[in-house]
Structure formats: structure tokens, C-alpha cells
């Protein structure tokens, strides 16, 4: 177990180190998130629709699309020089391999969210003083599920000719359930409801995470072995 975790962390560290060096995907995802928030900010008429009615949807649309941009890089880095063959040849189980790629993608998307959230607060002037713990929990739970499906699908599309195009097509339908839960939870949190009132939604997110992380772990081997 310790050895498996050590290997998974080595794979994740390698991915993050490669990304830190080029920063192309991180900057693209962060810029994309910022651009979406700016556009939405200028597109709304605060006298016609209350900010609180739009803000949750805008936050999660931004997170969802930035996550797709971010996750496209997950296996793109493995395409160079067929480096993925090197991972498949190593005495590392496919489950550990998935876990390593998953941890890297999760860190990456959470970093993008760490940039998007302050921008969201700035542009939409929302008060997070009471909602912050609940919102951070929601972000973490929803992202954990989205990234598990995203990691699996990016492994599927990496060998196709139009990987960047295929990933959102496959991934977006699977993103709908956690996004719906997350938007509803965020709406309630931003309107000052207590955390206990969103416990049901958080439980659904946990259920989604457990289900899709398990399914992704089980299917990963079938996806990567030719």
C-alpha cells in the first residue's frame, strides 16, 4: 500500500513538474477561467437579474470548462515520444497508474479553481464570509468526481486524432449530475442557508465521487491496454 502510494505520487509529481516547466496548460486554463468571468460580468444587467441568481451557475460553468481545458493536458504529455509506453512497461499496476494521473489532474484543476474563485468574488461581489467552508467543500467534492471521469476519458481519447475535441464531447454529459448538485448547493450557501441544509446535496456529491472513482479505477486497465 505504501509502495503503491509512493509510485502514484512519483507519477503525479512527474506530471506536475512537467507542467510547471512549460506552464502552457495551466496558463491556458487560468486565462480561460478569468476570461469567462470577465465576459459574464459584463454580460449581466444587475438591475434586471440579481447577482445571486446568476453567480452559482457562472461559477460552475467556469469551473467545468476550465477543468476540461486542464484535463486535456493529462495524457497529452504522454503522447510526446510515446512516453506512455514507458509507464505501461513499468512494474506498476494500472490502478496505481490511474491514481497517479488522477492526483496530478486533481491538483491541477484545484490550482485553476484557486485562481478562479477570488476572481469570481471580485467580479460578482459575493459575500463568502459564511459560505466559504461549505463552498470549498463543494468545490473539492465536485472536482474530485469530475476529475476521475476526466482522467478516464482523457486516457480513452489520447490515442484518437482529435483528442482535444473528443474529450469535452465525451465528458460533458457525465459532468451534468455533479454540476447540478454543485450549483444547487452553491445557490443555497450564497443565500445564507446553513450547511445542514445542503447536507443532502453534499452526500450526493460523495456518492458520485465514490461511484465514479471506483468505476474509473476498474475500467482504466481495459482502456490503456491495447
Amino acid at each position, binding site marked *: 500500500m505504501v509502495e503503491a502510494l509512493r509510485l502514484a505520487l512519483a507519477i503525479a509529481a512527474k506530471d506536475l*513538474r*512537467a507542467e510547471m516547466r512549460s506552464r502552457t496548460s495551466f496558463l491556458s486554463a487560468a486565462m480561460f477561467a478569468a476570461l469567462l468571468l470577465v465576459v459574464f460580468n459584463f454580460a449581466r444587467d444587475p438591475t434586471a437579474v440579481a447577482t445571486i441568481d446568476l453567480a452559482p451557475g457562472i461559477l460552475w460553468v467556469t469551473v467545468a470548462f476550465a477543468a476540461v481545458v486542464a484535463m486535456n493536458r493529462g495524457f497529452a504529455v504522454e503522447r510526446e515520444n510515446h512516453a506512455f509506453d514507458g509507464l505501461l*512497461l513499468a*512494474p506498476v499496476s494500472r490502478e496505481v497508474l490511474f491514481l497517479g494521473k488522477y492526483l496530478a489532474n486533481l491538483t491541477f484543476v484545484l490550482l485553476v479553481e484557486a485562481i478562479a474563485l477570488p476572481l469570481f468574488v471580485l467580479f460578482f461581489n459575493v459575500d463568502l464570509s459564511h459560505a466559504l467552508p461549505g463552498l470549498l467543500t463543494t468545490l473539492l467534492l465536485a472536482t474530485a468526481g469530475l476529475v476521475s471521469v476526466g482522467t478516464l476519458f482523457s486516457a480513452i481519447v489520447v490515442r484518437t486524432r482529435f483528442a482535444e475535441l473528443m474529450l469535452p464531447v465525451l465528458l460533458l454529459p457525465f459532468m451534468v449530475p455533479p454540476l447540478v448538485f454543485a450549483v444547487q448547493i452553491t445557490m443555497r450557501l450564497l443565500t445564507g442557508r446553513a450547511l445542514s441544509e445542503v447536507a443532502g446535496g453534499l452526500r450526493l456529491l460523495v456518492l458520485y465521487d465514490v461511484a465514479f472513482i471506483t468505476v474509473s479505477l476498474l475500467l482504466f486497465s481495459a482502456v490503456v*491496454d491495447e
Partner: protein
Amino acid sequence: MPSADRPALEAVGLDRAYGSVRAIRGVDLTLGAGEVLMVLGPNGAGKTTLLRVLAGLLRPSAGEVRIAGQTLRASEPESRRPIGFLSHHSLLYDDLTLLENLAFAARLYGLSEPEHKAREALRGFGLGERLNDQPRDLSRGLEQRAAIARALIHDPAVLLLDEPFTGLDTNSAELLRALLRERCLGGRAVVLVTHHPSEAWDLATRVGVLRGGQWVLQETRAASLEQFVTRYQELARG
């Protein structure tokens, strides 16, 4: 290390199809410790497919591969540990330095002191001055040297080499030949794919020719390269 009573590498009835095209058909292979099989064949003969199936990168449509008696399976990671594979591609990450690339490979194989092992492996191939360079900054020959160092970093018992001399200058090629000779004396088994028999003639103990995904020749290496080349050209033409 392969034991004396079991072949280092054994393939039985290997088939691999891509759709309706059968890239290899009924390929059998037995290789003992210290043996070097040089595999030749015209383009599209199935040489690279055979090597990828032997490495476990492609699942055979039929048949199985055994390394030191253990069946190679995707679900059994330890069955892959004895394999060292050099492909047409370097398997190196362009955004990492050579040292980081090889240290990562060493970590995947659970080697102690991965950075030290990576440094030693790169120095062994004359890349001691290029440790912090990225693969994209290297010439084809230097990248090939780094790829070989990566493939051999865990001292594998079975070496599967696809055109290992590609891009290497005379000195580097001689260095690789000396290293392979040393490994064979140490009991390693080698399958070496090439288009140029002269590159590995002195190393080879056996020679195989593939055509249309099947062996048309597999025998102990003959004494004369010239005679073999003439025969090979006839076999390759069919």
C-alpha cells in the same frame, strides 16, 4: 535473472491482428540466457509488432509470452520487471531534463537512490555533460543514447531492442555493442530488430527472418555474413 532450467524468454503461438490484418501469425520463440536473436525482415513483416507483443505493450490475439517461466500479463505488474524495451521512440518527456527523466524511470522500477542511478546511467552513455538538457535539445543520436540508458537503467534480464543503432555514430554504436556483449556474458537475453545484419552480426547467436508475420528462418547464426546477406535478400523478396 533467468534460471538455467527455464528459457529467459518464451513465446508460444503468438498472433496479433489489427482488424482484418494479421501482423504476426503463429510465432514461436525460445531464447536462453546469454543468447542474442537478431530479427530481420522487410518493412511490414511484423518485427515491431512482435517486439511490442513480447514487451507486453500489445495484447496478443492468441498465444502467450513467458519471461523466465512467468506468463506476461497486464494484470501482473511484476511480470514486466525483467523487460527492457527500446522502441523507435525515446519514451522521454520533453519537458523534463535527462536526469529527471531517468530518475523517474528509476523510481518506477523501485530502484534505490534513483538520481544517482540516473546520473550513472547517463554518464555510461557519454551524457554526463547533458544531464540538465531536455530531450528536445539533443541531436537524434544523443536522444537515442538517452533512450538506451533509460531502457537499461533497471538492468533488465530480457532486452527487446528495436533498431538500437539508429542515429548512433561509430563510437556510440561500438559502445552499445560492448555493453550488450557484457550484458549477454552476464546472462541477459536479447532480441534485436534491425534492417542491417552487419550492425549486430558479431553479437548475434541466432538469426530470425520474419516475412508476412511468420518466421521464414530461425537458426543459429552462420559463420559468414556475406553468405547470409545473399540468402536473406532472397528470403525477404519471397
